[in-house]
């Protein structure tokens, strides 16, 4: 354990001192603060709507959907292979510590950095808006904010675990950064496009508009959607959603939105949904949360196993 904490404190110092982390932290804090500032106009009946942002800006959820993978992967993608390239891994492993101390220490340091980031961003957002609104969140809202923070942490740790996995599996940092970018693009952009295209191809429109109007009436009054078409659209939507569920970013988005009682799909398209209670939101989304947690654990377990099997060779 002493080895783990020694490695973790050294790594943490590196993380907090790295330009990479400070730039991303600054960007997220600034965007989050702006989002909260604009979200004040839409608070309405619930304090948590500050996390929905204004209609034409990023919400906190969207910031995390977009930047979360970058953050997690950025903190992990070179954590092990950089040490191999620099030759420091053999020096560290040449000390009387258990080998897993190194990988555990790196994960703990990354986790502390990301938890600090998530907590501080949310705390700053709340700190900005409370004086502007003149009231603080209720207990229920505070719990929702707490749940959002926990969910965001798990989501960020998932990406950190994937980043560390790449850094263990790939010997070169250039390869692991390429895989990190590919993963981020796949889950953040490509999968949603693929889901839309696949669902359109697999569920062709059945039925069409029904002309129920009289002559001379404008089109928007004459035509209504047929029940068959509506059914096909719903089926298509369900398939698209099922495919998108393969993406952690999508799971995070729908779960976070549900916890806050906000529908949030893309830039400037937030809608306020029926405000669910926290237990309701958690009950409806426990599977999503479980999937995020399991993926995080599996990714870390894979990197842990791979690290223990690393063969130190001349030049490492």
């Amino acid at each position, binding site marked *: 354990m*002493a*080895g783990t904490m*020694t*490695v973790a404190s*050294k790594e943490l110092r*590196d993380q907090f001192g790295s330009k990479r982390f400070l730039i991303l932290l600054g960007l997220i804090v600034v965007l989050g603060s702006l989002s909260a500032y604009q979200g004040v106009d839409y608070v309405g009946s619930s304090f948590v709507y500050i996390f929905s942002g204004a209609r034409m800006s990023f919400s906190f959820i969207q910031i995390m959907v977009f930047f979360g993978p970058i953050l997690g992967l950025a903190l992990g993608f070179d954590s092990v292979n950089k040490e191999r390239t*620099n*030759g*420091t891994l*053999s*020096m*560290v*492993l*040449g*000390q*009387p*510590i*258990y080998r897993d101390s190194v990988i555990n220490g790196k994960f703990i340091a990354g986790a502390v950095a990301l938890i600090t980031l998530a907590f501080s961003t949310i705390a700053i957002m709340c700190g900005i808006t409370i004086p502007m609104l003149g009231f603080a969140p209720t207990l229920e809202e505070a719990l929702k904010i707490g749940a959002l923070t926990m969910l965001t942490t798990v989501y960020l740790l998932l990406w950190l675990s994937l980043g560390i996995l790449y850094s263990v599996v790939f010997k070169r940092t250039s390869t692991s950064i390429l895989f990190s970018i590919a993963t981020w693009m796949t889950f953040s952009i490509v999968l949603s496009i693929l889901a839309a295209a696949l669902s359109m191809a697999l569920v062709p429109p059945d039925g069409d508009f029904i002309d129920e109007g009289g002559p001379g009436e404008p089109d928007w009054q004459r035509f209504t959607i047929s029940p068959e078409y509506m059914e096909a659209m719903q089926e298509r939507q369900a398939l698209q959603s099922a495919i998108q569920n393969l993406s952690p970013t999508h799971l995070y988005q729908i779960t976070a939105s549900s916890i806050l009682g906000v529908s949030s799909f893309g830039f400037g398209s937030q809608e306020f949904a029926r405000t669910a209670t926290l237990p309701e939101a958690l009950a409806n989304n426990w599977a999503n949360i479980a999937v995020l947690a399991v993926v995080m654990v599996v990714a870390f377990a894979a990197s842990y196993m791979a690290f223990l099997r690393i*063969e*130190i*060779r*001349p*030049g490492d």
Partner: protein
Amino acid sequence: MENVVETHQLTKAYGEFVAVNELDMEIKRGEIFGFLGPNGAGKTTTILMLMGLSVPTKGTAIVAGHDIVEESREVRTVASILPEYSSLYGDLTAWENLDYIGKLNDQPKEEREDRVAEMLEIVGMSMWADTKLESFSRGMKQRVGIASALMKNPQIVFLDEPTIGLDPVATKEVRELVLKLNREKELTVVLASHLLHEVQVTCNKIGILNRGKLILLESMENLNRVMSGGEDRRIELRLTETTPDLIKDLKAVNGVKSVTQENNALYVYGSVDSDLEVSKTIVSHGAYILMMKPREYTLEEIFMKYYNQEVAG
């Protein structure tokens, strides 16, 4: 003297490629052991196995009484490695690097701080304790590297090509440092190198490794005897004149096995006891001895002899 390293049939294979092949050797406490071999001979792989960082495919080894596989953590408490290239953090100062290693060795704060100061003093880097390593020359980095290897107060240190890339001054400094540590702290040193001169002037025992096989294991003082096949040696002579009769008479001296002439030098190959008779014979022919010295084999000659035998054989 007690063995610090003992290997038995130590083998490491990466797939079909055998990097180290059934290595049997012993290194005694306090020795400076030179591990010689061309690039890719298996020196570093052997060191990694002896440090418990790489698991052997076959065979065993004991380092300071600990099995390298079963007790690899214990091995790493008594053995240190200085890898071929700088293995410290460039963004940390010399002090911070050593302090980190002390922490990894679970040394209490006060003991650690004293040790860091002592090690920096030994390697002559106290003045640069608070300077980041990235601004150091290669020689300075190597000095801090050696200090880092000593942080745990090891019984044995593996130095893998410690002077590679260093200028002659830094090379000499590192060499003198190794000798000083061996002398003052009775540290056992394993010096892997392909620089023959460096090994010759530093080590008291050598092992020549080629293609993973140990082709020679001998103390430096015995090397010449081994090379000449027994107690015999070679004398290099420079005379005022050399005649065929003189060469003929020298060959007839009891104990002399052969006499050869190369350029202006005469080489007499024979037993140590024949020196006096050789001198008398030369004087009896009216010649004067301008120079007479035993001609020792260079490590390069020794290495090439065994290397060529291995390649040919």
